[in-house]
């Protein structure tokens, strides 16, 4: 049965080419849906989809290819299960504007704790969170991010600029809150 032979070969090839990027896949899903169990389910679903479409994968960057499927699967999940949160997050009006100005940059000098950074990043709207994760944690170039999300490169730079500014604001606010005890 030539068909079966081919399919077994496919599973092997998939294992070799796509599965090494499992950490990247999980990291992206985890940051997009902000939940461990959902992220695992999404990665599993995305890998199955990737496997079904593997015949159409024409070589190239397997990580970017897998991440794109993970991203689509994550958004489908968010649309189905958290439609309200998703809509609110994209609404620019939700911005909080009361950034503390006192001595802010001095506070910033101190090392930012991972915990605080994690919390601030988790609170960012998903579109900013996503570019920051792809850039700072996954180390993708603007071009790779642009292709994955389907926007112009200039938009990637804008989103990063605004995402980082908001992250910084949020960290400063967190610092200010904790600053009252013992900084």
């Amino acid at each position: 049965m030539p068909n079966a032979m081919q399919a077994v070969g496919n599973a092997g090839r998939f294992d070799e080419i796509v599965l090494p990027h499992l950490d990247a896949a999980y990291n992206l899903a985890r940051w997009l849906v902000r939940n461990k169990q959902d992220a695992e389910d999404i990665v599993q679903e995305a890998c199955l989809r990737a496997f079904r479409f593997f015949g159409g994968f024409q070589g190239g960057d397997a990580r970017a290819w897998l991440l794109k499927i993970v991203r689509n699967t994550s958004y489908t999940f968010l649309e189905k299960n958290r439609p309200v949160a998703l809509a609110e997050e994209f609404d620019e009006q939700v911005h909080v504007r009361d950034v503390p100005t006192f001595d802010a940059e001095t506070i910033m000098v101190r090392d930012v704790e991972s915990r605080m950074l994690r919390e601030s990043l988790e609170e960012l709207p998903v579109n900013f969170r996503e570019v920051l994760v792809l850039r700072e944690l996954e180390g993708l170039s603007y071009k790779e991010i642009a292709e994955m999300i389907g926007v112009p490169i200039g938009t990637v730079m804008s989103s990063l600029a605004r995402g980082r500014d908001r992250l910084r604001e949020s960290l400063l606010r967190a610092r200010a809150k904790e600053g009252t005890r013992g900084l």
Partner: protein
Amino acid sequence: MVCDDNSRLLHGYLDGELDLVRNLEIEEHLKACPDCAQLLWSQETLRKAFRSSNLYQRAPSGLAARIRASISQEDSRETQAPLQPTPIFMLAPKRKVWNWLAIAAAILLVALVTWRALPGLEGRNSDLIAQELVASHIRSLQLGHLFDVQSTDQHTVKPWFDGKLDFSPPVRDLTEEGFPLVGGRLDYIDHRAVAALVYQRRQHLINVFVWPADKQTDNSPQSKSSQGYNMVFWERSSMYLCAVSDLSTGELQQFAQLMEK
């Protein structure tokens, strides 16, 4: 130079993504503008924080094994019984506690499915299917996975589906009418394998999804829009057909009529 423009370019500079000329411009500006220099410095601090953080979430140890298992299961299912795909998108929170409820819900859903008014794309289940159709359309464009069989010949495309599906989709070439057939592929909609026929209209692509109707009614084509894509849904000789495209509804309806001739 205005700082507002620069605050965006500053990030391109930080990421080493600017061209040489812009890079030099920013460096000049940074010498003259303490505010921007300060901003750059605090963003560099932020980047250092990212680098030294433990924010990267590695896959849990058992995940790879679970994925391998589900892929080999999928693999043997595809080779042994290609016509019985099972639902896999089961993302229920607290699934252990709710397992029995899920089973009850599934039974209820089956009951509902029997009554659903699909030809009009009404009701929740139909909405879900509509979402799936659009998602599949988008995916087919994004991944460069438009065809399993690429051909403008209906006598190549139609036989290709033989043995891969438990029905034979109607395949017509509409080149003379301005909608050339370009290929076909297998897809998954509503938990079953379906045929997807790909047609072209100028630069626009049309996916026509075809699967057996579970209920016989004779409805005229219905239109619907979702996420900026248009859909025309109809039924004929015990099959559901749904054309999805970014073409206007008018042109898509014209296409549906041509398919029916």
